[in-house]
């Protein structure tokens, strides 16, 4: 039997529940809404940005536990990072899921998604908030 209890670790549920960064910014420099059209999941991500670093982040996330937990990690961790760091963690996370690469350096809590490697259809759930964040950063540069 495939073991869904390995996938739904306590950490994931706690992050999802905590919903770090949930909400809206008064003044965002960049904003993006990303959908997963196949399932209807949706992330709206806002960032504020100063001298090359994220100063605030907020998101509204409609999605599954994996998606909400990933958005919550961003809420807890993104502030203080620059765009290059976000890009590299997003790439590393995708690689962790798809190619069994190690957990992205400096973001140890992302190890909670390691069991999702076995479920390709769920990879985009985890990645959607990161892609939304990248899109919001791109937007902020316009």
């Amino acid at each position, binding site marked *: 039997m495939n073991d869904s*209890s390995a996938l739904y670790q306590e950490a994931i549920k706690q992050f999802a529940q905590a919903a770090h960064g949930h909400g809206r910014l008064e003044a965002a420099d960049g904003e993006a809404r990303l959908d997963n059209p196949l*399932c209807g999941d949706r992330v709206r991500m806002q960032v504020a940005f100063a001298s090359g670093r994220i100063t605030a982040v907020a998101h509204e996330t409609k999605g*599954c536990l*994996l998606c909400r937990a990933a958005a919550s990690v961003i809420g807890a961790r993104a502030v203080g990072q620059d765009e290059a760091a976000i890009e590299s963690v997003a790439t590393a996370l995708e690689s962790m899921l798809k190619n069994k690469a190690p957990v992205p350096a400096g973001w140890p809590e992302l190890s909670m998604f390691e069991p999702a490697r076995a479920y390709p259809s769920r990879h985009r759930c985890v990645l959607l908030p990161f892609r939304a964040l990248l899109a919001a950063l791109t937007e902020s540069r316009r």
Partner: protein
Amino acid sequence: MNAAPASLRDEFPLLAATPELHYLDSAATAQIHRLALDAVVRHETTRRANVSRGTYRLAEAADLAYEQARQTAARFLNATSTDEVIFTSGATASLNLVAHAFGGTLKAGDRVVISVAEHHSNFVPWQMLRERTGIELALIPVTAAGQLDLARLPELIDSKCRLVAVTQCSNVTGAWTDVATLVTAARKVGAKVLLDGAQGAQHGPQDVRALGIDFYAFSGHKCFGPGGVGMLWGRGELLAAMPPFLTGGGMIGEVTPQATTWAAPPQRFEAGTPPIAQAVGLAAALEWMMSLDWPQIHAREARLCELMIEGLQRIPGLRLLGPEAQEARAPIVSFEIPGLHPHDICQVLDAHQLALRGGHHCAQPLLAALGAEVCTRASIALYNDEADIAALLDGLGFVLRELA
């Protein structure tokens, strides 16, 4: 209560090979019947040739098999003539065909009436027609139970209305459409009626004449047949008056650089090499379906559906979408559990050998109307049995414990 005769499950190779699997996603794709798969293989290994153009024996055999498949489909639908029966690549292609070819005979200001309950495949093609030609697109709303709100028909189906295009059965709520009332309303103003039978045909042979409709569309893969093939039935005189949609080989009268004339239906609507082996496989599935005792199957499916609903209703907070009354629904049951996302629900159920689908089910307008965005769906077909229902109810217990 009868269990599914084990032999019935055994007739489906995938189910026979995975006895532990509880497949409750037949509304998305039904499993293929052994006879349908055998027919595909037999065709490809003994009669493979292009159709309608060759005089050698292999080509004649292919032609005959393809036209016999058309006859079988005509019987399954009780069509007046095989010329009314068009093979397509699927229900979506059938619906697009009508939206373009019949739609091409409409003009700005003409009204097409669909419903809020449509699958995207019977929704978006009409929006596109609206963009192309300026038709007016009107939506029959749904009741809180997800049924078409027929009280609204008089204002929607009036003399401007040319076509009523609705689903026979919702792929989300299982709600059956009251076709007779719609047909009566449409006939009164001279409008035509298209029925999207994608969810209907799986539940038994149809009688398009008794239904009184003008077009009927369905897919092979939801009727225990191969993928890559679907059907469109259309009333002969309507098809004869319609321009083609896809164009190319096999559907022409004559081609010159200046102009081209069309073959008669059904060839006019079958451009290019059709899905020959798939049509033959679908016919085998339909032939098998016609041999079954449908009242008995419906009674079994309804009992299983009732059993499932009873169990679901014991889950605190669970919200069932769709009609209460059993006779108003096909055995398709969608539900929401507060705080739990369908993906997570389906993932945990999968660990318990249950195949269910979660999401918007290609019916975003309906879900929006029902105040949901996504839901979890269990759909029952003739090979399901009590063990599948029991496993689902047990599985949901695990879901609640694991995800809470």
